[in-house]
């Protein structure tokens, strides 16, 4: 059998083009759009027409980068490989503590009932704005594999998350022909190969307009930890004062946009990881923009990307026996449990309660983690395909 070529005509023959009826409907739909624009029903995208970027692609790329001490011990490892993915025995998302929120109702539209999530603009990491690298990148704008920056990158943190970056850019960023700075390379690897090396699919943009301005709604899945995700709504008009995130009819949290960007760090609804039938019927998360007077300006459906859509990285395992210090004697019939928690830096990734003397187990993406329990804290380093054993036995001092 020769393997140099494949013939897909067998399949393309099966799939006909649109029928005349379908074609007619499609034509009518396009005609409606065209006529709407001609009649001025579709408002021009004001600021994009006023500024020189008008003819540049607006591809808002979101990169997640772990910048702080959590992953410094392994600077040679892709930052994104330090994220945690669910293991077979990882605890359920319900055990993950929600992002830090600061309940307040100051200035909030009356009908918004969620809690405010901390969301702040932070300095753009130095590695990202290194002018020399940017210049080097921009010297090769015509080549695939290079990054053409358009506009100013913005950096944010939501729910005390690590920094992520949003920028308006024309992005064709791939590792091989771009500068070799490890952080840039990591970022480019992320863009080229996606989270967990599975392609660009993980970040999904869906366009919408607010007050006639084109916006983009993106998702950073499974970040900064498995089962959690960051929604980013970018290019919001300046009069958007509040943005809420709601699911199943409840406003769960809200933020004040910063520099035209709103973001939410939220748990991924469990139904998104369910079977097709479950996922298909799951409601969309909704993000809603309000002005300072509490008037709703727009509401958008947020992507329902599930875990399977962006794959998993090779993982390692940390396991061991966890025993509880129970004093001189355990009362008859009483079963003692010990809680083991896994942290990445200060972020709680998962917890598991096991019977005293039994084994806990976390399956995680390679990186440096901290295990905590009654014994205090212990740092472990996980490598792909390896099992790290960390036992927490009853110490001699425990009587």
């Amino acid at each position, binding site marked *: 059998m020769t393997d140099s070529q494949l013939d897909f005509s067998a399949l393309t023959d099966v799939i006909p083009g649109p029928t005349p009826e379908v074609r007619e409907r499609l034509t009518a739909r396009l005609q409606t759009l065209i006529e709407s624009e001609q009649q001025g029903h579709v408002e021009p995208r004001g600021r994009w027409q006023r500024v020189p970027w008008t003819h540049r692609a607006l591809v808002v790329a979101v990169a997640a980068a772990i910048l702080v001490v959590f992953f410094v011990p392994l600077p040679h490892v892709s930052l994104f490989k330090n994220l945690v993915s669910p293991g077979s025995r990882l605890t359920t998302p319900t055990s993950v503590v929600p992002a830090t929120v600061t309940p307040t109702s100051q200035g909030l539209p009356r009908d918004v009932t969620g809690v405010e999530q901390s969301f702040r603009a932070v300095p753009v990491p130095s590695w990202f704005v290194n002018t020399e690298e940017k210049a080097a990148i921009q010297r090769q704008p015509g080549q695939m594999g290079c990054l053409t920056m358009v506009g100013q990158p913005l950096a944010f943190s939501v729910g005390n998350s690590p920094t992520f970056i949003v920028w308006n850019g024309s992005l064709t960023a791939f590792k091989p022909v771009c500068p070799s700075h490890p952080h840039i390379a990591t970022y480019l690897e992320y863009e080229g190969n996606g989270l967990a090396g599975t392609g660009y699919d993980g970040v999904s*943009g869906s*366009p919408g307009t607010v007050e006639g301005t084109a916006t983009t709604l993106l998702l950073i899945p499974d970040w900064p930890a498995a089962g959690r995700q960051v929604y980013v709504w970018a290019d919001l008009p300046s009069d958007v004062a509040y943005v809420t995130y709601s699911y199943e009819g409840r406003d769960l949290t809200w933020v004040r946009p910063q520099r035209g960007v709103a973001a939410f760090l939220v748990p991924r609804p469990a139904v998104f990881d369910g079977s097709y039938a479950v996922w298909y019927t799951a409601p969309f998360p909704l993000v809603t923009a309000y002005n300072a007077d509490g008037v709703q300006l727009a509401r958008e459906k947020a992507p329902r990307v599930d875990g399977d859509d962006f794959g998993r990285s090779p993982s390692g395992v940390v396991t061991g026996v966890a025993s509880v210090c129970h004093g001189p004697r355990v009362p008859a019939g009483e079963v003692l449990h010990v809680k083991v928690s896994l942290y990445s830096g200060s972020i709680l990734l998962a917890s598991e309660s096991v019977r005293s003397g039994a084994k806990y187990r976390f399956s995680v993406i390679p990186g440096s983690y901290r295990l905590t329990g009654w014994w205090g804290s212990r740092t472990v380093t996980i490598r792909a395909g390896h099992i790290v054993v960390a036992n927490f036995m009853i110490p001699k001092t425990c009587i």
Partner: protein
Amino acid sequence: MAQVDDSDEAALAASLAEPPSFAALFERHVDGVYRYLSFRVGQDMAEDLTAETFARAFAGRRRYQAERGSVKAWLYGIATNLVRENRRCERRRVKALALTDGGAPATDSATQVAERLRLAAALASLKPEWRSVVLVIGVGGLNYEETAAALHIPIGTVRSRYSRARTQLITSLADSGEHNVTGDPVS
């Protein structure tokens, strides 16, 4: 091919001042985009996604950058993004195709139907990112360069993914019977 791309770009540029000019692009590519989406998500959704593809293209035509690829690649990129947003539908479609005759013409022989089913089953087993490359090339008819632009991946990645996917398809098909092999894209 270059003339077609020029014409596409000219029509797109003209549509900025005269929106009806966009209809020329629509006429030229609607069949291909619909066929591509039909294969990926099924005919039920293909109509909506085709309409959405052209609606997004029309709404975003000012953002088109010729240096990033042809208009055709741009359109298939939009269509592919829509497929990604409906990934589950694609999975179901591909699997369903593997389980039925996929609406094959009644005049097809049992051998032809069986060949289609084997190919569909083999496609269903590919990684999504490999399948994207294979289908954009195989069904959409894009060349390597256009595929790279459409999928936002380097041309080297297109080649490697296509090569790996082809190898896996060959292996899968070999397990289920002989098949014909022809038709690489133009590099």
